[in-house]
């Protein structure tokens, strides 16, 4: 089985994000880069499936040159090889462009299944898994927190709010976006870390994937024009007194101050 895992390199969750002076992006000087946490669930899902069914796990990542570090983390966890899309031509892709590139890799590699995170925690778009599935014309299930497979069929569970889970049977090949609870991503072991550098890394250009003009900043249909900090949130207010009075006061505040009722 050829298992594809898509991952993205994002700023560490502990980084204090600041927009760059000209609003064109974020200050990247002090940023520590990590694998987007949901993507770690995807890597683990891929590795577990390989342990059960055999085959190989190929991680795919699109981004600038440093994205190789993120792929290496997955290689150290046990993935077999990586495909890096760090060519100039891919930079500035919007979710559609990114999905075109990833879908093209999936075809080229002949993946039988794809795992990815439910969303990358930098821009939180939550679009790529669905668009890739659309482009490949594969079924998909998003926010998967339980995965079992038997031959051609996978049975997954996904939270749908209210503490409820939806159970979905999906025919492979398919795309699954993974969320918390699916598994406990393994640590990269020291022997794994030492081996990571010698594992194969392939690079494709837009031309290799026959995607000239369809990826990168020039092809983007969504453009990010400026980055700003959200407005500081005023601190919370505690209501005091009898419960009945508190409720009345709360309703009044929601009506008159917050104007949400």
């Amino acid at each position, binding site marked *: 089985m050829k298992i594809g895992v898509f991952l993205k390199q994002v700023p560490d969750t502990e980084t204090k994000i600041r927009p760059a002076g000209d609003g064109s992006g974020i200050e990247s000087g*002090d940023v*520590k880069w*990590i694998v987007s946490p949901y993507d770690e669930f995807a890597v683990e899902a891929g590795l577990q499936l390989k342990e059960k069914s055999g085959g190989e796990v190929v991680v795919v990542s699109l981004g600038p040159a440093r994205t190789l*570090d993120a792929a*290496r*983390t997955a290689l*150290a966890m046990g993935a077999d090889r990586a495909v890096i899309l760090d060519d100039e031509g891919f930079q500035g892709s919007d979710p559609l462009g990114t999905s075109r590139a990833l879908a093209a890799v999936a075809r080229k590699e002949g993946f039988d299944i794809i795992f990815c995170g439910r969303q990358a925690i930098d821009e939180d778009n939550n679009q790529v898994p669905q668009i890739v599935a659309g482009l490949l014309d594969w079924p998909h299930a998003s926010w998967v927190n339980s995965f079992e497979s038997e031959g051609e069929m996978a049975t997954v569970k996904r939270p749908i709010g209210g503490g409820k889970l939806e159970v979905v049977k999906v025919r492979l090949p398919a795309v699954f976006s993974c969320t918390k609870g699916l598994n406990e991503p393994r*640590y*990269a*072991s*020291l*022997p794994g*870390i*030492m081996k*990571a*550098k010698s594992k194969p890394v392939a690079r494709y250009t837009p031309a290799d994937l026959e995607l000239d003009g369809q990826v990168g900043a020039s092809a983007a249909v969504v453009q990010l024009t400026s980055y700003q900090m959200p407005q500081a949130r005023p601190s919370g207010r505690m209501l005091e007194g009898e419960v009945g009075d508190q409720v009345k006061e709360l309703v009044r505040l929601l009506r008159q101050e917050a104007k949400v009722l």
Partner: protein
Amino acid sequence: MDAATKTASLPPEWTDEHTMFRKTARDFVEKELAPQAEEWEANKGFSNDMFKRLGEMGFLGLGHPEEYGGLGLDYWFTVIWLEELVRSRSAGFNMAMTVQSDMATPVIADIGTEEQKQEFLAPAITGEKIAALGISEPAVGSDVANLQTTARRDGDDYIINGAKTFITNGSRADFITLGVRTGDAGFGGISLMLFPTDTKGFSVGRLLEKVGNHSSDTAELAFDNCRIPARYMLGQENMGFYYIMQNFQGERLVAALMAVAGMQMLWDDAMDYGNEREAFGRPILKFQVWRHKLVEHLTAIEAARRLTYYACDLFEREEPCVEAISMAKLYACDLAQKVVYDIQQFFGGYGYIEEYHVARAFRDLRLLTIGGGTAEIMKEIIGKGRGM
């Protein structure tokens, strides 16, 4: 911002492998150690299984030879491990583990026989056997050359009599790397032996109640006509003082590294607290007197880190390093006292309350200028080296 992970023009030059290992170490400490720290502190102990868990992860054998189950990595992996290990916030646990990996066992790797390595080193690396280092005695601490526990040769055996105290892991150890007197008075009559604790005549006395480092056990040990085979002699007879001094270098480097990492963690805590806690209508970090104090400490911590890294670099390259290591231990451990004092003050009343980490750190860090060679002894070593 994580100063320790920034690239520097001086050593260390972190490789990708180091960076990946830091993530593994941090994830492990945050997931498997830190959540248990409160319980370990309250119960004054942790399960022996933790040695096996760390062994399984490879953390007890980072620098140890691969033939015996170690990973044979450069010293910077140990540096990273220690820097992350402090995040468990259980100094006692950390001390127990570093005694196992970097204080009681490196000397076996260095001078042990094949048989000794198989019997003691290999199972210490997996965590199956727990190790202790037994040098200090009720009447002799700093003055190692004067230690009194005797090992008398009797045919193919040695017979050991005496007492040790302050021994970390002492109540649970399977073996002790033990300093004994085999010859005349003074440093020329000391040997190091490997002592299995199931030997008849050995007993663990009191567990000592300590100011801090609560999760580790610190024991008094008694040796009453304990007979062990002569093949447990480490290296040459009567060369023990020299081996002990060699071995102390690694131990002191661990102390310096953990002092620096511990200070940095407290400093980071202070930043968070200082932005949140308000007095007189503003965050306490907005008082210039505190900003300046914290900046002074940050500067000194960075200086301590650079001195310690310098010592690590010499140690890793097996160059003369005694002076640098003694300086690093002296400076970093002494600085830690000042840093924790001021940061505890910065936390106000909460700094005195157990729920805040700084309260525990205040007790735990106190050990640093005492254990593993006192500050005064570091000064003696540096002075002697300079012909004073």
